């Protein structure tokens, strides 16, 4: 275990600047709010720009496969910016899909499709529930007979915009991953009304839908688990971005809002809460960077680093969103204010890939702190 590099490189800061500029121009919170009750809750044009022009979807893909050959370090910077702007783009599903497909790139069909995922012209997701704990057993709810898949999975993220779905299923050989074209017969999808207006999910039901097997047995289990661990680690970075945004906005507000003839930020009760929040965000950044760096190195500390990052960041982001709302007073309770966008994203991301308690249980196993 070498010491992690917890800072941002110049290249990473350049990438951040580009993504932030684009999101500032195209993804202002008023635009996010306006979009969320329309027929087009996703901003797919924005996603194509992010994926195609800025190359975000290709970061985890090796150069040999046509990608940028970067790592989770760069991707985590992007995740921070997506979190900061609560961008309504299929980012999380893209992380899951890319992490899975890259590991199955020996399959000709996967190789053929990857370029379309990279340029953003095709979207994919993985049929696991959004609250799946990365360290849990391989899902059993879909069965495969030959190439025909039957069963259903709820809370599949970004399902409604997916062109392809990677389905974990159990077949005659045990665990397997199947690639399913979402438009074939036997696939039905229903959207759930989400708490988080900026990130949607739904239930996929498969009734003898035809898929193509891309991994099986222990490989399938390992690939799915690694994809979930990687995505959970990057979600921590997204949470850092959102928490920082909540803090920045609230500090600004505390300097401009006057009550009792002075700025509310001059009251110690408020200063101390913001100082604590700043310290929390600083720590969240350190543990999320540690996860991104450890994932990039791929050493055997990966699961521990991700569990620590999720155990810390998923509660911290909720605290940040709640403090943001409380310190804004009544205006924070209105629909016309972004507080609820931040809170919805924060709270639902806290549930995603296991709540902090699940990650602490895993830490107990990994750090030799056994249960009673």
């Amino acid at each position, binding site marked *: 275990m070498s010491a992690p590099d*917890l800072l941002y490189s110049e290249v990473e800061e350049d990438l951040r600047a580009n993504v932030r500029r684009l999101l500032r121009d195209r993804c202002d919170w008023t635009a996010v709010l306006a979009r969320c009750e329309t027929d087009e809750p996703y901003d797919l044009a924005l996603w194509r720009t992010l994926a195609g022009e800025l190359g975000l979807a290709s970061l985890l893909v090796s150069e040999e496969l046509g990608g940028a050959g970067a790592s989770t370090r760069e991707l985590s910077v992007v995740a921070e910016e997506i979190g900061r702007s609560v961008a309504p783009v299929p980012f999380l599903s893209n992380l899951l899909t890319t992490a899975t497909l890259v590991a199955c790139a020996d399959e000709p069909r996967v190789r053929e499709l990857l370029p379309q995922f990279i340029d953003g012209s095709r979207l994919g997701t993985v049929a696991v529930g959004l609250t799946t704990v990365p360290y849990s057993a391989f899902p059993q709810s879909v069965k495969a007979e030959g190439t025909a898949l039957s069963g259903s999975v709820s809370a599949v993220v970004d399902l409604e915009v997916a062109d392809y779905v990677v389905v974990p299923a159990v077949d005659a050989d045990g665990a397997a991953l199947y690639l399913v074209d979402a438009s074939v017969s036997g696939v039905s999808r229903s959207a759930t009304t989400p708490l988080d207006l900026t990130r949607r999910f739904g239930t996929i039901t498969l009734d003898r839908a035809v898929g193509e097997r891309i991994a099986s047995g222990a490989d399938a289990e390992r690939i799915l688990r690694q994809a979930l661990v990687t995505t959970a680690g990057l979600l921590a970075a997204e949470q850092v971005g959102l928490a920082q945004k909540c803090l920045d906005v609230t500090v600004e507000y505390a300097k401009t809002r006057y009550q009792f003839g*002075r700025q509310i930020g001059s009251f110690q009760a408020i*200063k101390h809460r913001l*100082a604590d929040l700043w310290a929390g965000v600083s*720590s969240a950044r350190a543990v999320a960077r540690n996860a991104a760096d450890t994932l990039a190195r791929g050493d055997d500390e990966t699961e521990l680093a991700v569990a620590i990052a999720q155990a810390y960041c998923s509660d911290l982001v909720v605290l940040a969103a709640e403090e943001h709302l409380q310190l804004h007073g009544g205006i924070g309770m209105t629909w016309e204010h972004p507080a609820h966008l931040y809170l919805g994203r924060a709270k639902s991301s806290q549930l995603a890939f296991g709540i902090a308690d699940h990650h602490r249980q895993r*830490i107990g196993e990994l750090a030799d*702190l056994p249960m009673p």
Partner: protein
Amino acid sequence: MTVDADELRGIVRGFLAANDPRGMDRLDFLRARFDAGLAWVHFPAGLGGLGAARELQPLVDAAFAEAGAPDNRPHLNSIGLGMAAPTILRFGNDEQRRRYLRPLWTGEEIWCQLFSEPGAGSDLASLATRAVRDEAGVGSEAEWVVDGQKVWTSLAHRARWAILVARSDPDQPKHQGLTYFICDMTAPGVEVRPLRQITGEAEFNEVFLTGVRIPDSQRLGEIGQGWQVALGTLMNERVAIGGRAPAREGGLIGIAAEAWREHPEKRTHGLHNRLLRLWVDAEATRLTSLRLRQQLAAGDPGPEGSAVKIAFAELNQAITGFELEFLGEPGLAYDDWTFHQPEFTDFAKRGPGFRYLRAKGNSIEGGTTEILRNIIAERVLGLPPESRTDKDRPWKELPR
């Protein structure tokens, strides 16, 4: 050109080839190491360093440890190394740097900090110890005559030197009338009395200063600049206290985790939950302080270190409280109430009761948690200061 890691390894190898730690007197070895610039590599050449990057120091320390070389026992001179040295480097003149830094680093001269007073703790700038300039002095050099009382002075019973802040001009507003000195703890008029603490021992003392004469050559910085110099010291104090970056389970959490492993029969689900939360917080704080160090590689510590100090204080208090509850009956006992004056504080060697009591000081010493939150809010986040009535009035008119 600054020295990089490879060159530094080469310099250490060459030094060890010429100075065999096993065949040499301990102090001679340490002095030679200082003179070779391998004491604190980020200090300038000639003052114990090579002007290298701060983050290369662990590499040098590890190489010396591996060779079985004696170290400078840094735990015995934490105020000297952590606070006095960076302050002397930054504000001292060449003569002062050459006089004080070498014996400080080798541990020949221990330092203490004469800042707090009975009437001035958090509000340090209101301190009342007087320094009056005496132009006559000895020979051609002016002297200062210092009178006052300091309190909570850790290690005063061991110290050869002290960093001291005193009021040189009571007619100025409180921040402007201060001057910073190096005080000889063996000078006539310096009296040290131990203060027994809640742990039974006396780490800290009261120090009475009565007509103590300090030569002007022991003034650090300009007359009236004492507050700026003191702020520099305090920033380093918070890094020294909070900025240590131990290995995983390196701090008090390691002791609690070991107890957990050794006593399966004492485990409960509620305690397990608490332990895991503390473990994650300890790891988060460790990584935060590591990240701060990486950011700090160049430049002086800023107000950000305050957050790590708050976190360590809260963690240490929560962990040591947890430890007693987990242990049960052994948690009722105390290892040793005997009054003595320790050379340093060793959490690990003492019992859980001592750890529990001593950790209570972590949120008071080096700036209370409340004051550190003010610092983060005002200096990091830029929030407006409290409305204050004391800033622009002459010190002597302030209510006390």
